[in-house]
């Protein structure tokens, strides 16, 4: 298993390297000419040359590439053409994207898994048809349109005050009394919200597995959800994070809901197909013959085994989800990574663009690796294969 994960990590690193190299040359060559031409009307030829020299963009492309990559390896993302350090700028944006991405993916996965399971278990019928149609419609919806609909409906319901922002400008999304003199900045609150939600989820998952090993029973999903909510809100209460966390979640709910609506359909459809295939397997007949009640057959035998293809599909589609989210952020004016990517692209601020791409790449590489770990845990056949390889090699 270790061998398998090592292999996945190395291949992930190679993919990341290729992606970044390609993106470096593409963004350098796609920019109309270079940063200095933006000011061609205001500057003389000499001034422009001086600016180019200052920014270091007068040097040949390959030299810049090696410089950039060298500092990247050292963890330095360089400076924006506007003077601020890229890493610091991005650091403030990550919580926005991660909050929506992680919580949204978790929710979408659970909804999709559950709906797919129920639809396949019920077989052809009204429930199946309705859930499939809605999943397909949402999955194939035009994201900006869906984003528009969701924000129209939810902004009024949640009584959210939004700044009238024109064009592509992205600014602050947190207003109101609470944020006048807050104990914590929104970014800090977001990080804590994420840390508690994800951390406790993992904790509950691990506990559940231990429980299954010990007494061969698992917590029902509802108990798990209740435990998660209790733990999370308890921690928020104890630390005084409560009002801030609620506000953050309220504002973030629009991008989260949109993201969930767009992404649960894929999980649902694959789960449904996989589950109906699994239900035709012989080991389901074995389980029935053993006299297992239908709940146990559905959850323990069918759904658990049907989850494998869903999981492997999720591993593949994660980068798409992440890039899709960046586009969504732009539509919803959510100041996540899209701010760095889109605005910087319009301003030809290549270092910031590259910094954003590095983050997208690293984020997908890490989540992919995490999913690989979970997948290897879920499917014993993978653990076995790696063992065979180790013996052979």
């Amino acid at each position, binding site marked *: 298993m270790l061998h398998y994960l090592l292999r996945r990590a190395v291949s992930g690193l190679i993919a990341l390297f290729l992606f970044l190299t390609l993106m470096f040359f593409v963004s350098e060559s796609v920019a109309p000419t270079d940063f200095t031409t933006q000011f061609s009307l205001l500057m003389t030829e000499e001034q422009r040359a001086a600016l180019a020299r200052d920014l270091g963009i007068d040097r040949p492309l390959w030299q810049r590439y090696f410089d950039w990559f060298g500092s990247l390896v050292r963890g330095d993302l360089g400076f924006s053409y506007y003077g601020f350090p890229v890493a610091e700028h991005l650091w403030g944006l990550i919580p926005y994207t991660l909050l929506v991405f992680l919580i949204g993916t978790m929710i979408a996965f659970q909804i999709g898994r559950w709906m797919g399971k129920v639809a396949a278990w019920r077989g052809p019928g009204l429930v199946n048809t309705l859930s499939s149609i809605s999943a397909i419609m949402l999955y194939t919806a035009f994201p900006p349109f869906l984003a528009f609909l969701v924000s129209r409906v939810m902004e009024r319901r949640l009584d959210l005050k939004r700044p009238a922002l024109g064009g592509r400008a992205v600014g602050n999304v947190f207003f109101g009394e609470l944020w006048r003199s807050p104990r914590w900045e929104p970014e800090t609150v977001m990080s804590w919200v994420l840390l508690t939600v994800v951390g406790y989820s993992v904790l509950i998952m691990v506990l559940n597995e231990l429980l299954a090993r010990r007494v061969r029973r698992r917590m029902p999903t509802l108990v798990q959800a209740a435990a998660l909510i209790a733990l999370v809100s308890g921690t928020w209460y104890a630390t005084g994070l409560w009002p801030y966390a609620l506000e953050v979640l309220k504002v973030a709910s629009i991008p989260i809901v949109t993201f969930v609506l767009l992404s649960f359909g894929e999980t649902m459809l694959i789960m449904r197909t996989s589950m109906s295939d699994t239900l035709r397997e012989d*080991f389901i007949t*074995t389980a029935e*013959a*053993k006299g297992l*009640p239908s709940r146990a057959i559905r959850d323990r035998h069918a759904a658990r085994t049907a989850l494998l293809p869903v999981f492997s599909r999720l591993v593949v589609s994660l980068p798409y989800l992440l890039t899709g989210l960046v586009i969504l952020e732009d539509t919803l004016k959510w100041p996540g990574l899209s701010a760095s990517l889109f605005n910087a692209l319009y301003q030809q601020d290549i270092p910031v663009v590259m910094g954003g791409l590095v983050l997208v790449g690293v984020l997908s590489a890490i989540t992919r690796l995490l999913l690989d770990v979970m997948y290897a845990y879920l499917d014993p056949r993978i653990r076995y294969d790696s063992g065979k390889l180790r013996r052979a090699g």
Partner: protein
Amino acid sequence: MAEATPILSVQDLVMHYTTRKGDVSAVDGVSFDLENGKSLGLVGESGCGKTSIAFSLMKLLPDNAKIKGGSIYVGGTDILQLSHDELLKFRWQRIAMVFQAAMNALNPVYTVGDQIIEALDLHWGDLSREQSRERIGQLFEMVGLDPKLMDRYPHEFSGGMRQRAVIAMALSCNPDIIIADEPTTALDVIVQDRILRELKKIQEKLGMSMIYISHDIAVIAEVSDRIGVMYAGRMAELADGVDIFEHPLHPYTYALMRAFPSIKGEKHELVTLPGEPPDLLFPPPGCRFHPRCPRATDVCKQEQPPFADNGRGHFVACWHPMEANHE
């Protein structure tokens, strides 16, 4: 025929599959008894209803299957009258099944031991984990597997080992009856023979009753005390193994035996039976075998022959049985 009360008694079982084209009469008026500690083999071509019978015995039928009539008594209770909860307790405890293991009878994501523990937990709920593991160890030894293998996953087993594991699972709750549905079809001949013989030994040792289901009459003959030959959803002939081999009464049994090579017996030319089994959506009137039968007359086309005892518990459903020479 039956001296004591049989452990299993099937009377006039009728089972239909509902399809878009109409009802398929998969099992039509089948009756047989199985005595305690004995084994019964069901043979027939594919689609003759032998597997449908097996699944009816555990009420493990797909949604479109319906038992239209008859009764299935297991140890005195009619299982067709059981409630759903009673049925769940009945399965595996009274009748267990050995599935064809090559066809993924084991769930790939759980260890073999865990899948047996699942059955033990369900039916023998008061066992501790150590007791369950001890029981599985015994079962593994009984079927010729190393007890250490119980924590392995199915894909780490070979085909033969998986078959043994499936047998161990069937034995786990000490059932009265074990149904072996094509138990060794996917295995090579040598493994097949060895496993069948061991299964037979275990059955005799534990005093269980067995039902073997196969299309291969030679396989069946080796392990069964009584043999039932099925054709197109009906029982054509039912008799003691030796009897049916030496004096087949039904023309279909006769043809079936001539279609398989015999290793021990005298040489004979293999004769194939012309024609195909009937479409059970529109079964032929009278005897269902008459379109292919060389001995068919007018009465065969019109009236269904009774399934009658022709002496010594040798049942046959035929208007013109082959010359029987008992004595």
